[in-house]
């Protein structure tokens, strides 16, 4: 069984991170400033940790070519191997991975064939990341997929393709370690949630969302009448107009809130065209988390 472990790892933003990952999907919530990029780099063996140990199946990826060969990775800032065209650069990367597949099949699966003939110097940073993502997801037998914010590239690579590939990998015993800077991306990636907060690791128990107010974004052709009705419901703490035909409805329990909105709209014969949870911003979460007690989290040295 594949296993990825961090033992007392301090490097760049990361402070004494000790954790282990088993096969399946693991989403690390946090921004690049929190150290998600560094976490992915260390897991993929792109850099050695300044202190502590990172091991994939008992071997440090930075010092073992065979271990790195079993890792598909996507970093925050990508650079393809030096070559004139994307096709030549990918051929070099595939050769380094001892992968006999063609560049066309790798790019074709991700819908990026149009980039094959482009000069690497003409690629944008996002296009380079998209190609690196295609390369990582095309890995035939990975032990680990370490991806920095893969869903930030959905405008270049189809979301279904990314999610299906990650799900298939997780189901076949691969450790999928993906970071997300937004809750929406984290919930779409699924799996076990962890978080990094200014370099401090919060495992799944501590990464649980703090008890913030639940908010629903309701789209209706008659927002005024629905707001008037909902303002009298005891489960609902507040209703605000979000512009056009949208209302933001606040409460303490998401399920009860949704039930109240739907039943009251039905009682007044008000049509609801869309209803979705409004996720809090990461900053709001960080602030809420900071106010929570963190007995096991190490403190950042002065």
């Amino acid at each position, binding site marked *: 069984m594949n296993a990825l472990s961090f033992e007392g790892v301090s490097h760049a933003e990361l402070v004494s991170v000790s954790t282990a990952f088993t096969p399946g999907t693991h989403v690390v919530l946090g921004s690049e400033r929190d150290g998600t990029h560094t976490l992915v780099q260390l897991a993929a063996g*792109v850099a050695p940790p300044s202190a502590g140990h990172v091991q994939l199946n008992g071997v440090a990826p930075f010092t073992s*070519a065979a271990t*790195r060969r079993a890792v598909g990775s996507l970093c925050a800032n990508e650079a393809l*191997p030096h070559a004139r065209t994307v096709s030549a650069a990918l051929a070099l*990367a595939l050769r*380094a991975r001892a992968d006999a597949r063609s560049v066309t099949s790798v790019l074709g699966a991700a819908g990026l064939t149009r980039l094959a003939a482009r000069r690497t110097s003409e690629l944008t940073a996002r296009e380079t990341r998209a190609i690196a993502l295609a390369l990582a997801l095309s890995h035939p037998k990975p032990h680990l997929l370490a991806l920095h914010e893969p869903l930030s590239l959905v405008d270049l690579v189809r979301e279904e393709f990314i999610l299906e590939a990650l799900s298939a990998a997780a189901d076949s015993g691969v450790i999928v370690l993906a970071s997300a800077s937004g809750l929406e991306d984290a919930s779409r990636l699924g799996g076990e949630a962890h978080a990094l907060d200014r370099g401090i690791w919060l495992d799944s128990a501590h990464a649980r969302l703090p008890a913030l107010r639940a908010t629903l974004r309701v789209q209706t052709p008659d927002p005024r009448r629905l707001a008037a009705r909902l303002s009298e419901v005891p489960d609902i703490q507040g209703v605000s107009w979000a512009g056009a035909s949208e209302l933001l409805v606040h409460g303490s329990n998401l399920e009860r809130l949704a039930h109240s909105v739907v039943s009251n709209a039905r009682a007044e014969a008000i049509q609801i065209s869309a209803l979705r949870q409004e996720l809090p911003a990461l900053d709001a979460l960080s602030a809420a988390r900071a106010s929570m007690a963190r007995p096991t989290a190490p403190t950042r040295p002065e």
Partner: protein
Amino acid sequence: MNDARGGISVGMKLGFARLRGVSAPLSVVLACGAVFALSVLGRRAEPAGALDDLLAVPVFGLALPVLAYLVSERVCGGQRLDRGVDSVARHGADRRAAVLGLLLASAVSTALIAVLLTLTAVFTAHGAGSLLFDLRSSIGIALLGGAVYALWFGAASLLGKRGGGRKWALIADFILGAGNSALAAPCPRSHVRNLLGGEPVLEISQAHAWLALLAIGVVCVMLSATRTPE
């Protein structure tokens, strides 16, 4: 074994890819142009010794070390030698083998540049002696000298955060290599000078100078390989 071969081949491809572009050939053409101009001037001043002077100072004393430094800088991508292969190592290439591939690309390129400079010098400043003899002896020195300079700068690139050791190796070669004491012995310049008929280091013969150059190259390769993680 296959992994190592694959790594060397990937490293070589990476090294040659980094040398592509206009600036590298342009630098060589400019250097050859300068050698040509100096040979014309040298032949006017002293036709008999023009070739020896040209090979000793402008070609092997100045152009070769500087061009070898630039090639090494370019092949390493402006990084330390071991970090210069990061873009392929992260996909699974053996870093050590890829570094050897980079060194090989650098050595082949620098040796060819040295041969081009030498041919320019020999054909333009050749005096009364046998052209074939001049060509044979100077091309041998160019091939070995060029390759050893590449390996010397490659090993030095393992020092410093961004391979700053290269710069110090160039300075050391210019300053220490110019002497004939024990301090000059590790520098390629001192042995190349001996092979060209100049003052020997520690009174060693020309035959031993070949071996000394070879030894410097081997030590540099071994240092590069042992100081690079897999």
